[in-house]
């Protein structure tokens, strides 16, 4: 609910001046504990999606992070496709591993990805979402979207129900 309200109020502000000010984007993702004997850490992708205007659908813009079995050079990438939404929107057009984007899978717990302003300096101010998608071997898949505003300091939260826990987004000055 909260992210929706935030997106609406952001829209009410009208157009933003581009380019955005120097700001960092911090995303904290909780990988939940799972019960069951055959646990494997999930593959997780984080990306930015530009909000759709009117009838237009949202557009994936940029991958922020991909957590996969980077160390398995031969087969680690075979399951990237299971993060279906990311794979279709951005993943299959990328070359991985990619510096500053790919890293190993994460254990259950809170993990923060900080994107320095320099990496996003060409991102026009406006309404976006951080999208987090998790896919787990012998488990499920879940996508969590957290709308945020690029162009001023703001925070937003979302939460998953199965493969993801709390997701929080903070744009700091």
């Amino acid at each position: 609910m909260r992210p929706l309200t935030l997106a609406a109020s952001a829209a009410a502000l009208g157009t933003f001046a581009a380019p955005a000010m120097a700001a960092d984007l911090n995303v904290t993702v909780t990988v939940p504990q799972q019960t069951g004997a055959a646990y494997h850490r999930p593959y997780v992708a984080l990306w930015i999606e530009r909000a759709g205007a009117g009838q237009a659908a949202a557009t994936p813009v940029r991958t922020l992070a991909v957590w996969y079995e980077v160390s398995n050079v031969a087969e680690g990438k075979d399951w990237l496709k299971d993060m279906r939404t990311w794979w279709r929107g951005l993943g299959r057009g990328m070359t991985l591993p990619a510096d500053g984007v790919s890293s190993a899978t994460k254990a259950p717990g809170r993990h923060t990805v900080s994107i320095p302003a320099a990496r996003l300096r060409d991102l026009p101010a406006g309404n976006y979402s951080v999208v987090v998608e998790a896919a787990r071997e012998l488990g499920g898949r879940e996508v969590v979207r957290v709308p945020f505003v690029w162009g001023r300091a703001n925070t937003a939260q979302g939460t998953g129900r199965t493969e993801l826990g709390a997701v929080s987004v903070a744009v700091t000055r």
Partner: protein
Amino acid sequence: MKKSIAIIAALAALALPMSAQAHRAWLAPTSTSLSGTDAWVGFDAGMSNGVFIPDHAAMNLAGLVITAPDGSTVAPENMGRARYRSTFDLHLTQQGTYRVANVMGGVIVSYKQGGEQKRWRGSEAEMAANIPADATDVVATRNNSRIETFVTLGATSTTALAPTGQGIELVPVTHPNDLVAGEAATFKLVRDGQPAADLEVTIARGGTRYRDNPEEITVRTGADGAFTVTWPQPGMYWVNASVRIPAQGQQLAYNAQYNGVVEVLP
């Protein structure tokens, strides 16, 4: 050169029992969207009433042509024929989209000679030399059947999807390996390279054994041969269209059929 040999080989494949033509022909991949440096995909090919339910006849794959993302032709592996389905594997080593098609064409001639009903199959060029001079009740039909599917390793590409100009073909507007439930997809059908206008397209989702309603979708192509479908659910879908043109003057009767399989992801 190679192509003509493949076509001649495919003519032999026309030796399907006529009863099989009433059944639906499908060539179904085990996966359609893959990641990694290489990947393997298996295929089942059969003819049956329920799409993807192998309970009637295995498909003759003599006309199998696999086009790689770079446009080259690659070979299947582990080819086998079971009672109700033919199977093979494809090792995907190039990034991009592969077109996997079983294409058959040629002429079927039925005639009477001395009161006896006879039948001949072959290419149109060889027809005149093979029908006896005393044949009566000669009915010749030109046939073209395309049974195909698409699989992609990495990013989608369209080189392999270029129409050959023969029979009914599917030209992507939406890429056939970029289909998601709830979204609309548009394709164009062409017949012998020209827009196939006002053609009925039947779209059937697999898994009919586990539901009571067939839930088939019927759409028509527009003047430009295009049709649009909004995928109601994820699943493997069979896309079918056919054309029957009666003989006109010197022009032989012509039957063309298209049977494609596409996967829609959640």
